[in-house]
C-alpha cells in the first residue's frame, strides 16, 4: 500500500507533508492540487514530517491538500528514441506538449510508443548473461543502439529466448531470461533507472588514454581533454562560455552528445534546436541533431527540476556508454544547479556553509564528476563519458565555493578571462591559468606522440612558455617604458602575441576558422614555433612591432583560408619570405 500524507506547510516550492507510513529519502510523491498532480521529491524526513521539493509552482496549494508517495526514486526511461529528443529536467518530452505555456502537472511520454525499430538479436537461447550485457540492437539514426539486460538485474541469468529479427515497438517483449531461482523475467527495449544512482555494469574504469578532439586550438593543442575525461569552464558573464560550449558540442569527436541547459537562457536552447538539425557532424557527415539529446531546464522553469536535469543528462550518457559508445556531456551551468541546492537548503533553515551554500556542496559536485570516465565493458569493448561543465562564478571571482569545489573534481580547467574578452581575444581561455592534467599522463603523452607528432607535448609546453615569457616582458615594458628595456623584451613580447593571435584566438563565427582539425593544429603550431625559434634584430621597437604585426596578419589570413588551398600556400610562402 502506498504511503499517503497531507500538506502542513508551504514556503515557495518547499512543502512539508505529514505522512501516515514509511517514506524514503529522494522518494517521489505527487501532490494533488484540485485534481492536478504535481511531482515532488523527498529531501528531508523528521519524524512524521517529510520535507519535499516540488517540481512545479506551488501557487494555490493549501494546508490539508493530499499527497501520495510512489515508493521509488526519480527515474527516467531508457530506450531507443532518446537521441534528437528535447526533454525537460524530468524527461518530459517538450516537443509533444501542445500548449505554448508550460502547464502544471503536464507530464509527457519521453519515448515514442508507436514507432517501430529494426531489431537484430545479438544473444541466443542458452547464453548466460548479467546486467548490461547486450541482447540485441536496433538502428537509432546511424548508431547501433544496444538492447541490454536491465541494469537493475542482479546475478546471472540464462537467456530462454530472443525475438527474431524484425520491426518492433519499444514495448515489445524482445527476450525472456531465467534467473538462478528458475523464475522467468521478460525484457522489452525500455528500462527504468533512478537518475541519482550511477549505472555500473562494466568490468573496470581505467585511466583515460586518448584525447577527444574538439577542433578548438586552445583546447586540443594547449589543454587537451581526454576521452572519458572531465573539465570545466568558469568565467564571468560575457566571456564566451556559451559560444565555446556550443563549438565543442558541434565539433566534439563523440558518438552521442547530451546537452544539459541547466538554469540558463531559453534563447540559447532555441539556438541549439534551431541550428543543430541544419548542421552536419564533421566526423560522420550526418545531421548533428541525430546524435544529440537536449535536456532543457531554463532559468524560468521550476528550480527543483534544475538539479534533476544534470542527473537525467548523466544517466542518459551512462546508458549509451554501456553500448560501447563515446558520449560527451555538456552542462551549462553547474552553478545554477548549486544555487538550486542553496535555495532549498535555505528554505529548510539548515546551517549554511560558505556564501550560504549547503555544507556538502563539495561532495555533491565531486560525486557527480566521478560518474564520467572511460570504461571497459563486460565484453571487452570500451565506452566513455566525457564531461565538461560550465561554472558561473559570482562577480567573476574564482574564489567562490562552486568554482573551488569543481576545481578539486575536474581534471581540465579552462579559465575564461574578463580582460581577454574585453579585448575581443576569443575564445577568452586564459593561456597561463588554464590547465589539462592529462598532459601529465604518460599514456596520453604516448598517444599524442603516435597520433600527432613525436615530442608533441614538449612543443605544447614550449608554446606555453613563450606566452609566459611574453607576459613577463610586457610587465617590464609597462614599468620601465618602451625605451627602458632591451630589444629582446620587445621580441619576447611580440613572439607571445604571435602565439596568442595565431594559435589561441579562433573565430567561432568564421566558416573555416571555427573548426581546426588536429592535423592543421599541428601544422600551425610547428610553423609558429619555427618562427619563434629564430633570433631577430631590429633597429628600434617600432620596427619590431611592425614586423610582427605584419607577420600576425599573414598568419591570421592563413587561418581564414581553407587548409592546403592555393590561398593557404600563398600566405605560407609570404610568411617564409618575411622571416627569411
Amino acid at each position, binding site marked *: 500500500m502506498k504511503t499517503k500524507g497531507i500538506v502542513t506547510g508551504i*514556503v515557495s516550492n518547499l512543502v512539508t507533508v505529514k505522512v501516515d507510513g514509511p517514506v524514503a529519502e529522494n522518494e517521489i510523491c505527487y501532490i494533488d492540487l484540485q485534481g492536478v498532480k504535481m511531482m515532488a521529491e523527498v529531501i528531508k524526513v523528521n519524524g512524521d514530517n517529510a520535507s519535499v521539493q516540488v517540481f512545479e509552482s506551488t501557487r494555490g496549494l493549501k494546508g490539508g491538500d493530499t499527497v501520495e508517495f510512489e515508493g521509488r526514486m526519480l527515474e527516467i526511461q531508457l530506450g531507443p528514441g532518446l537521441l534528437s529528443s*528535447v526533454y525537460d529536467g524530468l524527461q518530459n518530452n517538450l516537443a509533444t506538449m501542445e500548449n505554448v505555456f508550460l502547464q*502544471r502537472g503536464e507530464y509527457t511520454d519521453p519515448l515514442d510508443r508507436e514507432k517501430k525499430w529494426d531489431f537484430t538479436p545479438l544473444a541466443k537461447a542458452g547464453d548466460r548473461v548479467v546486467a548490461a550485457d547486450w541482447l540485441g540492437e536496433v538502428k537509432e539514426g546511424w548508431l547501433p543502439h544496444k538492447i541490454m539486460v536491465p541494469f537493475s538485474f542482479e546475478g546471472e541469468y540464462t537467456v530462454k529466448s530472443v525475438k527474431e529479427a524484425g520491426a518492433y515497438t519499444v514495448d515489445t517483449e524482445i527476450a525472456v531470461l531465467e534467473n538462478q531461482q528458475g523464475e522467468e523475467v521478460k525484457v522489452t527495449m525500455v528500462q527504468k533507472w533512478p537518475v541519482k544512482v550511477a549505472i555500473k555494469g562494466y568490468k573496470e574504469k581505467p585511466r583515460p588514454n586518448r584525447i577527444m578532439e574538439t577542433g578548438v586550438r586552445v583546447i586540443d593543442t594547449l589543454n587537451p581533454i581526454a576521452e572519458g575525461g572531465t573539465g570545466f569552464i568558469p568565467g564571468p558573464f560575457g566571456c564566451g562560455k556559451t559560444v565555446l560550449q556550443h563549438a565543442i558540442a558541434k565539433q566534439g569527436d563523440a558518438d552521442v552528445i547530451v546537452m544539459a541547459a541547466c538554469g540558463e537562457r531559453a534563447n540559447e536552447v532555441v539556438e541549439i534546436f534551431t541550428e543543430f538539425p541544419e548542421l552536419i557532424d564533421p566526423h560522420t557527415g550526418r545531421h548533428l541533431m541525430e546524435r544529440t539529446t537536449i535536456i532543457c531546464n531554463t532559468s524560468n522553469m521550476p528550480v527543483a527540476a534544475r538539479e534533476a536535469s544534470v542527473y537525467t543528462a548523466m544517466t542518459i550518457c551512462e546508458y549509451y556508454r554501456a553500448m560501447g559508445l563515446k558520449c560527451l556531456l555538456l552542462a551549462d551551468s553547474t552553478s545554477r544547479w548549486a544555487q538550486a541546492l542553496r535555495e532549498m537548503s535555505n528554505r529548510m533553515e539548515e546551517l549554511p556553509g560558505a*556564501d550560504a551554500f549547503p555544507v556538502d556542496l563539495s561532495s555533491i559536485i565531486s560525486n557527480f564528476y566521478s560518474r564520467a570516465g572511460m570504461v571497459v565493458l563486460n565484453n571487452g569493448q570500451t565506452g566513455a563519458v566525457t564531461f565538461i561543465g560550465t561554472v558561473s562564478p559570482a562577480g567573476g571571482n574564482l574564489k567562490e565555493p562552486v568554482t573551488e569545489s569543481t576545481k578539486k573534481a575536474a581534471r581540465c580547467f579552462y579559465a575564461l578571462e574578463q580582460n581577454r574578452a574585453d579585448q575581443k581575444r576569443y575564445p577568452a581561455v586564459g593561456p597561463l591559468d588554464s590547465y589539462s592534467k592529462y598532459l601529465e599522463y604518460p599514456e596520453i603523452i604516448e598517444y599524442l606522440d603516435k597520433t600527432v607528432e613525436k615530442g608533441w607535448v614538449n612543443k605544447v609546453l614550449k608554446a606555453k612558455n613563450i606566452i609566459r615569457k611574453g607576459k613577463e616582458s610586457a610587465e617590464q615594458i609597462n614599468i620601465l617604458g618602451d625605451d627602458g628595456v632591451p630589444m629582446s623584451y620587445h621580441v619576447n613580447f611580440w613572439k607571445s602575441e604571435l602565439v596568442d593571435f595565431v594559435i589561441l584566438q579562433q573565430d567561432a563565427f568564421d566558416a573555416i576558422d571555427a573548426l581546426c582539425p588536429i592535423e592543421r593544429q599541428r601544422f600551425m603550431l610547428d610553423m609558429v614555433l619555427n618562427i619563434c625559434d629564430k633570433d631577430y634584430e631590429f633597429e628600434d621597437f617600432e620596427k619590431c612591432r611592425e614586423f610582427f604585426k605584419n607577420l600576425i596578419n599573414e598568419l591570421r589570413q592563413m587561418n581564414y583560408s581553407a587548409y592546403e588551398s592555393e590561398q593557404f600556400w600563398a600566405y605560407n610562402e609570404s610568411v617564409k619570405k618575411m622571416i627569411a
Partner: protein
Amino acid sequence: MKKAYQKIYTKLEGITKATVSLRAPGVSNDELAVVAGRLAQVVRIKGDMVTLQIFSGTEGIPTNAEVTFLGEPPTLKVSDQLSGRFFDAYGHPIDGGPEIEGEERQIGGPSVNPYKRRQPSELIPTGIAGIDLNNTLVSGQKIPFFANPDQPYNQVMADVALRADVDKIILGGMGLSNDDYLFFRHSFEAAGALDKIICFINTTENPPVERLLVPDMALTAAEYFAVDKNEKVLVLLTDMTLYADALSIVSNRMDQIPSKDSMPGSLYSDLAKIYEKAVQLPTDGSITIIAVTTLNDGDITHAIPDNTGYITEGQLFLRADSDTGKVIIDPFRSLSRLKQRVQGKKTREDHSQVMNASVRLYADAQNAKTKLENGFDLSDYDHRCLDYAKDYARELLAIDVNISIEQMLDTAWKLFGKYFTPAETGIKQAFIDKYWVK
C-alpha cells in the same frame, strides 16, 4: 476577486515591518488578502499559521486588524482598453480614466515552453551606434542598461523605445522619481506615441514592497498583446536594482539566510522569472525587455548586476568619457549576445569584422593612454590610436548619435583609412579590397 462568503480574522500573532502572521486554516499559497484595508499576499504557510507580505508596509497596523482572504493571487484585467493608460502597481488607473474592463488574468503566470519559441532574428535599429554597430538589439531579446545613478539612462531608454519599430511600449517604473515619471509621460506625449504606451508606475512616494508587483503586471499586459494579439511589444523596466532591494527587504523580514550582498539566495531565479518572459513567439508576436540596473560606482560584481548579467542577453554599459565629455556606450563592458543573429545577415557583410577591429583599436588607444599616464614616450602608432579614439568616441560611441547602420559602417571605414594601414586593422582581405577608404 471576491469570494461569496468571507471569513474575517481579527487576531494577528506577529507583525514585522513588511509582514504579519495569523492563524487561518485552509488558506492557499500566493493568495491575496486584505489587512486593515491594505493588500497583502500569502508567502508562507506553517500548519495553521500564515505569513502575509503587506505591500504598502505595516505601519500602524494593530494586532486586532481585520483580515480577509480573497482566494486568488494578484490579477490584472486585460483588453485593448489598456492602451494609452497609466496604472499603479496594483493595476488601478492613476490617470483619472475609467477602470479597465476585460479578462481577469493571474500575474506571474507560467513560462513559455522553450520548444515553442522561435529563434530571435529581427533587428531593432535605434540610431545609436554604440548599440546598433557594437551591440545590435534583436526583438525577443532581454538586455539591461548598467549605469551609475547620475547617468541619463532613462533618457536613453526613452529614445530607444520611441525609435524602435514596435506595436506597444509598456513601461514598468519601480521607485521612479516623480520627475522621471513625468519625463517619460511628456516624452511619450511629445512623440505622439501615447496610444501605444501602457505604464505601471511605482514612484519613490509609494511603499517599496509594492514594486514587487510592477514587473509581473507589465509582463502580463505584454503577454496579452504578444500572445493573444500577435503584436511586437517592448517592455521597459526601470530600475531593477530597486526591485531587488524590495526582494531583500521581504526575505530579511522572513528571517531567510541572506547570500551575497544581503540579497536572498533565490535572487537569480527571481530575476530570471521576469527576464525570461522576453520571447519571440512562433506567431509574429514578441516581447523584448530593456531594463535598467543602476550600479554602485560602476561595480558590476555586486549581486544584482552580477546575477542580471548571467540572465540577460548582454548589457549596455553607460560611461562618461573624459576625452569627449560625452556619455558613451562602453564598447568593452557592453555586449549583445544576440548580435550575431543579425550582424552581417540583416546588415552589411562587413559589420562584424568592422565592429571587432574598431573595438580592438580602441583598446590599443586605452593602452597608449596608460603609457601616457605613466609618463612614457608614445610611439607613432600610439599617437594615431589616441587620435582615432577621440573621433571614434565622438562620432560613434556617444549616445547622442543618430544615424543608419550603413552610415555607422562607413564612418568606421573612414576612421580606419584616416589613421591606420589595412594590416593594422587585421580585417579580412576581401573586405579591405572592397571598403577601404584611402
